[in-house]
């Protein structure tokens, strides 16, 4: 600290900002480096080998051959296709429903706490129970969904047997399974909005839909941004839902293959670890690009105070 006097004020601030910034971030960085980045690098490097012995960590045939295999594998292409469908359909639908429910819960009704607890229950329900219930709801003969559709004269749909329908069953299930979490996050986001804004709006006699579009939505945009990014990432990671719905298979005739299912199956099923690694790298790059774009867009669309 001897040459303190030589430094301009601006430089001093910069040093302080850097020092404190990294100090507060230190625990995260240390843990992440040891338990995420290090194993990540170790597993990524496997993707660059054509052959890999996982037990001795020795690879041979360094190059991009494994990437070529994965990218041309029909199963992986199917997985990308399915993930795309989930991102485009399940994410927005589930966000809109969750926001609607959160707004209703937040509208000042008396039983709000009671309902909120109920909407939270799927979060603590056994995943196995959820899987059984949904396989049953989708059952072609006995499922409530087909019975309901039958009232409108719709013929029984082979939700879980027909490779063309299975992905829709997965999307519906996925919308449902994301709700509890999104509702909780939206609620805590709504909670964070300063009531002053609403009071002001009330005094001005602003119509409700305007209150929603001019106050609620902009002030909720950081939450919406958070949920969009995390839901898109989660869409790539859909695995448990597939497992629960189809009993440990990626759907009839592999029709519900997802990107992470593909990775798991390569890693744990067939132990082709280098292929699992190559697929992970591809996934990592895709997510990085999408997240980067979302971050750029957020600068325009997300409203912080």
């Amino acid at each position, binding site marked *: 600290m001897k040459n303190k006097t030589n430094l301009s004020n601006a430089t001093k601030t910069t040093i302080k900002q850097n020092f*404190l910034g*990294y100090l507060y*971030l*230190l*625990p*995260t*960085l240390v*843990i992440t480096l040891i*338990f*995420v980045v290090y*194993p*990540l690098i*170790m597993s990524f490097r496997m993707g660059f080998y054509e052959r890999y012995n996982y037990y001795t960590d020795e690879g041979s045939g360094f190059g991009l051959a494994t990437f070529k295999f994965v990218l041309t594998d029909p199963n992986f292409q199917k997985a990308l296709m399915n993930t795309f469908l989930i991102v485009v359909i399940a994410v927005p639908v589930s966000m809109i429903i969750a926001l609607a*429910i959160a707004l*209703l*819960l*937040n*509208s*000042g*009704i008396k039983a*709000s*706490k009671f*309902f*909120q*607890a*109920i*909407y939270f229950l799927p979060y*603590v329900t*056994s995943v*196995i*129970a*959820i899987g059984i*219930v*949904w396989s*049953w709801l989708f059952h072609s*003969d*006995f499922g409530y969904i087909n019975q309901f559709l039958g009232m409108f004269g719709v013929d029984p749909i082979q939700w879980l047997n027909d490779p063309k329908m299975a992905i829709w069953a997965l999307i519906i299930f996925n919308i449902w399974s994301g709700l509890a979490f999104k509702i909780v*996050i939206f609620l805590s986001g*709504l*909670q*964070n909005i300063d*009531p002053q804004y609403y009071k002001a709006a009330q005094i001005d006699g602003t119509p*409700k839909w305007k209150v929603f579009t001019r106050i*609620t939505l902009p*002030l909720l945009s*950081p*939450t919406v*941004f*958070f949920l969009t990014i*995390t839901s898109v*990432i989660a869409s*790539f*990671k859909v695995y448990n839902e597939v497992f629960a719905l189809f009993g440990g298979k990626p759907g009839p005739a592999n029709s519900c293959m997802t990107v992470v299912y593909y*990775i798991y199956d390569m890693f*744990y099923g067939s132990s082709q670890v280098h292929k699992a*690694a190559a697929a992970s790298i591809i*996934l990592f790059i895709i997510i990085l690009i999408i*997240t980067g774009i979302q971050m750029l867009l957020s600068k325009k669309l997300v409203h*912080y*105070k």
Partner: protein
Amino acid sequence: MESNTKKVTSVWAKVLIYTALILGAVVMLFPFIFMLLTSLKTYAESISVPPKIFPEVAQFKNYKTAMEMAPFDVYFKNTVISSVGNTILTLFVTIFAAFSFTRYKFYGSNVIFTLLLATMMVPGEMLIIQNYQTVSAFGWIDTFQGLIIPYIANVFYIFLLRQYFMQIPEQLYKAAKIDGCSDWKYLWKIMIPNTISAIVTIAILNFIASWNAFLWPLLITNNDKMRVLTIGLTHFTNESGSQVHLQMAAATIIIIPVAIIYLFLQKYIISGVTRGGLKG
């Protein structure tokens, strides 16, 4: 304060709101009810096709049988220690990191943040074997630090809390500075109290995740005295199927503590409903 016409519309609005919420609640609640009912069925009832919703005679003895399948009392104690420990540490790490990203403009902060976000996509199961090697080199097999430490930095929560921290007006910080408030004090006196709903949400989500963690606790424990509740749940399954009725009984018992904690903390998430309400 309200005119008569307004009251009428608000009654209709209430009916609509409640109808929608009740319908939604049925959809959300169904698996939970199913879990409870299945836990009271006989084995044959639990696998019948089409499914029977209600058991003929409630089999309360399932609960006793299920609890005898594994040392659930020891598992319970371990699960409490690791979940509570993990949640407390996670909160500290998360708060510090979110504070760092919102308060300080340090070199590379945007890049680090984006990279951290990208690590969220990595399927944890891909890293788990490598982490086992690391933890085993630390000598942490069969220890609580092994159960807790590797999972105390969660980017998901850091990102969430950052979103809330960013909404706290800059003027507050400037005012605090003028009052001679240090950054540390500002964090505790202003930032945290103002985002308590988010912090409680994170605590609940993390507690549940920690409570339900399975593969990691199984990997790093060999000693039954160090194992957790979720490992007990595997005792009901073998390669040709599972004893769903017992599994559901055990699953029901296991989630009771989580449900209690949720109800206890719930008021922090939704306390100011009337405050933030859109009441007409």
